[in-house]
């Protein structure tokens, strides 16, 4: 390892230790902000993990998030917490596998259309079930989880997501996905099972999203379908990942942090115009920064002058 790598590792570890002790030093407002930051960091990174290399646009984040939140609302009081999280992850993963197997074999359009409506579909099914079977819409979430617990769980999940992403990028699966992203026909001719690779990654990414929903669920004491399956989350996650740059593992975090802060600010100060502003921000990113901050960074780093000084250093 080069000295700069070691320095980076030391900085990362000390940063994580500081983050781990954060709940002891900040007040409730900043803790809640930190939770939002972690939540969107994990969601956007998980989104980029699938959509970055494959270039399939998934608009289903809210569907998985909601499934996770609802699983906790239903089972949270009955079973032990780790078991509840495990079941949530299993349901989310299974749902992703079914959706992936039925749409990812077809062209990308079918996937987009299906994921576009998935949150709405699951919401309708949950409403239908609650109205017909339990006869009450909405549930109370009574579990023995403190705000600090939620924060730490999210932190662990964030570390796990980056670890998973790092491992995938260095595995055969990651290599296959990069080829698929470049040219799917070429990938097929190389003997890569394109469908399996795509479905596997989509399932991993969706399982993580489901877990975020499950962990965040105790933050609300009352939950109903329109809260859990709020399509705005899907939208925000796509913007964040795009602003940061979805083709790099660390890209989405560069978008998640500034945009979470912006959205928090907007929803507190200008609730009636926040949708409009989000749309404008989104268009600006699509037109001005098509490959995100990470892409910009890659371009800057690739400049001749920069390369020259690097060579001189070496």
């Amino acid at each position, binding site marked *: 390892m080069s000295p700069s790598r070691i320095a980076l590792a030391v900085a990362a570890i000390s940063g994580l230790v500081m983050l781990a002790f954060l709940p002891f030093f900040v007040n409730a407002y900043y803790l809640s902000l930190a939770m939002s930051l972690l939540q969107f960091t994990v969601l956007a990174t998980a989104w980029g993990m699938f959509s970055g290399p494959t270039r399939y646009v998934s608009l289903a984040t809210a569907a998985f998030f909601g499934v996770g939140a609802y699983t906790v609302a239903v089972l949270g009081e009955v079973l032990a917490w780790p078991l509840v999280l495990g079941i949530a992850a299993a349901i989310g993963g299974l749902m992703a596998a079914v959706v992936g197997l039925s749409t990812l074999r077809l*062209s*990308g*359009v*079918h996937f987009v*259309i299906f994921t*576009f*409506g998935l949150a709405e*579909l699951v919401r*309708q099914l949950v409403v239908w079930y609650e109205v017909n079977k339990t006869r009450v819409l909405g549930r109370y979430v009574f579990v023995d989880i403190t705000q600090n617990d939620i924060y730490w769980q999210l932190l662990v999940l964030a570390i796990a997501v980056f670890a998973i992403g790092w491992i995938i990028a260095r595995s055969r699966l990651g290599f296959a996905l990069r080829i698929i992203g470049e040219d799917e026909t070429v990938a097929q001719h190389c003997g890569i099972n394109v469908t399996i690779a795509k479905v596997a990654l989509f399932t991993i990414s969706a399982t993580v999203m489901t877990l975020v929903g499950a962990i965040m669920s105790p933050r609300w004491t009352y939950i109903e379908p329109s809260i859990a399956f709020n399509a705005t989350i899907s*939208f925000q996650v796509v913007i964040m990942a795009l602003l940061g740059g979805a083709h790099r593992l660390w890209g989405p975090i560069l978008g998640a942090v500034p945009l979470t802060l912006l959205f928090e600010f907007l929803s507190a100060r200008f609730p009636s115009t926040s949708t409009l502003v989000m749309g404008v921000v989104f268009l600006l990113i699509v037109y001005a920064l098509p490959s995100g901050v990470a892409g910009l960074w890659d371009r800057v780093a690739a400049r001749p002058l920069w390369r020259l000084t690097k060579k001189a250093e070496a």
Partner: protein
Amino acid sequence: MTNAVLTGLMLGGMYALIAMGLTLQYGVARIMNLSYGEFLVAAAFASYWLFTGWALSPLLGLTLVIPLSFGVSYALYRVLLTPLVRRARTRDALEVESILATFGMMFIVQGIMLAMFGGAYYSYSFLAIPVQLLGESLALNRLMAFGLAVVIGLALYLALTRTRIGTSIRAVAVDPAAAQLVAINVAQTSALAFALGGALVATAGVLISMFLTFSASSGVVFTMKALIIVVMGGVGNLLGCLVAGLLLGLSEALVATYVDPGLTLAVNFALFLTVLLIKPAGLFGRAQR
């Protein structure tokens, strides 16, 4: 039973009309427009505003809304979407870019409507007179909207198959590269098709506002149904639009009557997947890609 079938057919006719504009935008201009439903709702609000504020009949309102929406869509394509068309290297790349750009537009249009009208549901009463048809009583406004949808659909079909511009539009839909070789201005034709699609969805919006309640955030559902119909029928195919639209309307009405009205979306998706798993290019689509 007759009632469910009649309702289903009329609903399906409206769906077909809604999807026709999108099949032009997506099939010809290659823009997968996720903000499509928002333009439908915007036209519905325009019609509401003209009717309640100026006592202008929605049918007269159409003569204002159609040219306006045509112009707005044309400008939108020229200003916002042409840069994407130029930037995209392949058709798939353009698809991804247009999804992202129109996704942003969806929130902008929705945001403007939310700021103007809030989140409440709107409706107005126009020609809500019961009419007897095959022993069933139906509202006149629905019947008239359906009639107009049929007329517009026929007119569009004739325009696309019998006129020179229509033929060039169809040529671009089939193969833009080859169309260029026979001296068709692809950029111009795409813009025209996109604007035509915008005018069609606005017409659908005005017609729907006569009998359906709508809110600033109800566009997404229309976008989804239109997308499903377009892809199910075969992209860029008007006949496919009609058949898929009727299929969707009928199945929705039957499920709503006999099973549960809360499951219509589930039916849509089930139908969508079934058709695509059997025929990935859609009911009337050519196998390609």
